[in-house]
């Protein structure tokens, strides 16, 4: 039995690798101890804006308000049971994010695929790296991942670079990987550089996870090797905070 099977993990993704680097205790809690965490309104914002933009890209005649309504409908559904006060802030930003995102991406034309599943086998790694890219325009050789944010970054983050580099590597020859950051006021599309280096970094992180999991098939023993920083946003929701206390006593 390989280390992943021992913990019921069938694959790794860029987000799980990034989680391990940022908050290994949360990784153990989620992936090994199978304690679920609630997703905040910011994550729902991203999902919902993407829904609105996908609608607008796949239907070039769709109006901006129609696309914004798609996003709002989904956001309201996803947050319908949330008592998080940040929901109002997020919902107010949605229509503008959809409008600005469409203005940026409609010039690329209709995507040849959206939410494309990719998988990459890494030599020595017992599970595949898996993920889903947002948009591909096969005719022009462009792949774009969409990120929503309230502050426009001046460059691609390391985490996003690793994520999109994986997509580019899996799609193979001659793809131009890009990331579009959208705020409620502006947006920017950046060209991802050094794809091979970022894939190599992601592979090294994945191999580290494999080594870590190989220490023990007992998730509580793995938990005993890490300590959570409960002041970070990873543990901001009450359920995660309580789980951390129950596991680590802090």
């Amino acid at each position, binding site marked *: 039995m390989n280390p992943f099977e021992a913990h019921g993990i069938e694959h790794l993704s860029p987000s799980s690798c990034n989680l391990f680097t940022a908050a290994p205790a949360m990784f153990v809690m989620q992936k090994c101890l199978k304690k679920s965490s609630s997703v905040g309104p910011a994550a729902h914002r991203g999902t919902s804006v993407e829904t609105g933009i996908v609608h607008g890209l796949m239907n070039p005649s769709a109006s901006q308000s129609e696309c914004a309504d798609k996003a709002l409908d989904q956001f309201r559904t996803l947050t319908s049971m949330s008592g998080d006060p940040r929901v109002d802030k997020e919902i107010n930003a949605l229509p503008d994010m959809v409008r600005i995102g469409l203005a940026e991406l409609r010039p690329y034309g209709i995507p040849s695929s959206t939410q494309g599943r990719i998988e990459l086998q890494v030599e*020595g790694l017992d599970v595949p790296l898996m993920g889903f890219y947002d948009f591909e325009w096969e005719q022009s050789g462009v792949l774009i991942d969409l990120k929503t944010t309230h502050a426009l970054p001046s460059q*691609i983050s390391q985490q996003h670079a690793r994520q999109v580099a994986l997509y580019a590597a899996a799609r193979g020859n001659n793809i131009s990987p890009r990331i579009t950051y959208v705020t409620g006021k502006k947006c920017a599309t950046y060209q991802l*550089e050094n794809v091979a280096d970022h894939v190599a970094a992601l592979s090294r992180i994945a191999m580290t996870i494999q080594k870590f999991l190989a220490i023990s098939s007992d998730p509580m023993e793995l938990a005993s090797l890490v300590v959570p920083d409960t002041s970070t946003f990873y543990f901001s929701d009450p359920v995660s905070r309580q789980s951390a206390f129950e596991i680590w006593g802090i």
Partner: protein
Amino acid sequence: MALGFPTGGDGGDIIPIIKFDARAGRMFRRDRINGENEQIDITQDFKAIFDFENVETGTINFNTGSAPDFAVARYGDRIPPKPSDDHKPGVRLLVKLGKDSGGDVRELASTARVFLTGIDNLHNAYLDGVKANHGKLPIVSLTSCLPITTGEGARKSTNYSPVFNVVGWADRPADLTYIPRAKAGDGAAQGAAPSAPPATGSTRVSAPSASSDDFG
């Protein structure tokens, strides 16, 4: 290998560049817009007249921290000695872009081995074809890119070698003028192996333009 890739000295004016990203297999035009560099992806539409009459070979150091250092000479002239261990075999030439790729004269330079393979094959095709097209320059398209994988395990990497194709021949455009230079300007930082954490990317790009063959 027609170009041989030895060396020669030079320098000169700042000429806007195009850049072949061997790691992505893409061709970019770098424009200076509002004081910032912007890379325009011209892979799909790439067509250009290559000034192979004045192609320069030698060694280039892109890793200077500022402008690249060229030690190159016109093909056939005596190549200058390699100034440092950081200078890698490379090539530089001017191209006149087709209208849909930008339409202006650009510098193309690289030390990436996979790029040199592609440009050397193209130069061979030029040498063959120019016999029947005396005094003309080749119109070149970028047909595809071939993945070249090197290394093993964690050091395994894939780069892309451009496959250029001569699609026609043209008289030298009036603005495609070769001037020997003593020092290059804003060079194309291609092919240098990273010795630090890799950059993620901060170059803003826009949607590719529609294609056509018009050189105007």
